[in-house]
């Protein structure tokens, strides 16, 4: 039963992965072929089709690196380097992760705080919501360098400016989700509290907060991914010395396409890991709150 469920979940995922890898290989051959043909013509090399395909998949600076090149790069820079090394993906991931987590923590706290205010204070409900939505229409790429530069001018550098960008991106889904969550209790549940003459805070802690938990974890999943994007974006335009963003930037400067793709993979894995952890946290809370196992 359990095995059946596992395989029924994994098989479709693996199928899609296989299809993506196949397309990726074809794209790599197709995109790298012109350069390889050029190279062969100049060097007066003639090769069989198989040899030619092999060469398109092993260029040092390909237009599209082949999957195995990227995997090899990720493997080497993750496991074969010292974690303190500037080439280690673990090192760069950690730099990005630390500001992601700080920003995510701030953002979640801020989002919850704003939601609590909006739900309880009518004036905030009317005044704050439009601004919150407007805040997310401003392109983050425009704001990030300004924040970093302004803060650098007052001698705040390093983790905090990056974390602030993450906060800026992550508070939004939490605020919106929690407003919905804190308003999710049925009228009958609120009436019940009223018949007990419960105070606003009792209603909040005993009804609104527990009722909003599923909303909190759903929006935290979105927020943690947004935090990571914020941290990477904050590293891009500011010449940060380390982090996945700086790795992407350096890769594009020196046409180190394989490095760029490896950094991209590292970022994706990080995001998947973070979302999974939040998901597990949500399930633990669910279980403690007696949610029926499905």
């Amino acid at each position, binding site marked *: 039963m359990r095995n059946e469920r596992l395989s029924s979940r994994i098989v479709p995922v693996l199928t899609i992965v296989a299809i993506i890898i196949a397309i990726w290989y074809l794209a790599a051959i197709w995109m790298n072929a012109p350069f390889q043909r050029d190279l062969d013509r100049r060097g007066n090399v003639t090769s069989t089709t198989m040899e030619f395909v092999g060469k398109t998949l092993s260029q040092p600076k390909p237009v599209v690196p082949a999957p195995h090149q990227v995997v090899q790069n990720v493997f080497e820079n993750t496991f074969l380097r010292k974690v303190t090394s500037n080439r280690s993906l673990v090192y760069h991931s950690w730099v990005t992760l630390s500001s992601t987590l700080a920003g995510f923590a701030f953002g979640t706290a801020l989002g919850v705080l704003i939601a609590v205010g909006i739900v309880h204070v009518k004036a905030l409900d009317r005044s704050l919501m439009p601004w919150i939505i407007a805040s997310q229409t401003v392109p983050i790429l425009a704001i990030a360098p300004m924040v970093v530069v302004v803060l650098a001018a007052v001698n705040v550098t390093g983790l905090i400016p990056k974390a602030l960008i993450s906060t800026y991106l992550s508070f939004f889904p939490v605020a919106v989700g929690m407003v919905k969550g804190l308003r999710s209790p049925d009228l009958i549940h609120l009436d*019940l509290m009223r*018949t*007990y*003459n419960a105070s606003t805070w009792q209603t909040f802690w*005993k009804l609104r907060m527990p009722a909003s*938990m599923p909303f909190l974890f759903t929006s935290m999943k979105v927020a943690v991914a947004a935090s990571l994007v914020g941290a990477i974006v904050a590293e891009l335009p500011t010449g940060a010395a380390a982090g996945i963003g700086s790795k992407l930037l350096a890769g594009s400067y020196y046409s180190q396409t394989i490095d760029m793709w490896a950094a991209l993979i590292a970022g994706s894995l990080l995001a998947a890991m973070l979302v999974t952890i939040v998901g597990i946290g949500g399930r633990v809370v669910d279980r403690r709150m*007696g949610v029926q196992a499905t």
Partner: protein
Amino acid sequence: MPDHITRTNLRTHRTHGWPHRMTASPASVVSARKLGLTFQTNDGPVHALSDVDLEVEKGDFVSFIGPSGCGKTTFLRVIADLEKNTGGEISVNGMTPEEARKARAYGYVFQAPALYPWRTIENNVALPLEIMEYSKAEQKQRVQRTLDLVNLAGFGNKYPWQLSGGMQQRASIARALAFDADLLLMDEPFGALDEIVRDHLNAQLLKLWATTEKTICFVTHSIPEAVYLSTKIVVMSPRPGRVTDVIESTLPRERPLDIRETPEFLAIAHRVREGLRAGHSYEE
């Protein structure tokens, strides 16, 4: 069996009707005089209640029966201060409904069990006790006692979804009984349950009423339920919601389920049905 319940004053009043006088008895738990409630809607005012005069005395079991829209639930909600009357006067335990609510004078049982899904049954029953800041030991003891009272001992650590609908509703009754309110307001608590479960719960409720000596106001759609349970039946009619008949039950307080086959029972049920019909013809 409480024997201090002797007389109730429950009277109807129509605008064009009979002369009436109010005898505000000191034992009266709920006392309404020319009570009216009008909702302002986009389609104009809706008269949910109009000129309702009513006395509920201590220890009464009063049923409110009538078709949808007759204001029976609204009347209960006015007693509970979940709605405000727009006309007339009402007192609960000699106070305004708001004061009574703040004094935690009543327990309210809704149409749905309204249990919090993230709390176990015993924690659901403990909810009002937590809010009213009873001590931990007192909470535990009261939860135990009220769960015993509704025959749910042993189910305390289950979650609501693990219980049947009837058991959930019993848990919600236990929750309303957990603190010291002498008045129990019940809004069609068994409406969503099947006939067999309902019969069983009705019998249990009567027993509970006898042991706890509470005053109960009970809203229902069902004529047999109203007749079986009540010392007094208030028949209401819609648009505007008003009282058309008040029937003092002549049934003994001890009521086995088969009392429903007796001529006396059927006579009262007949009078309720007549009252409901009269309310309808008035409308057309």
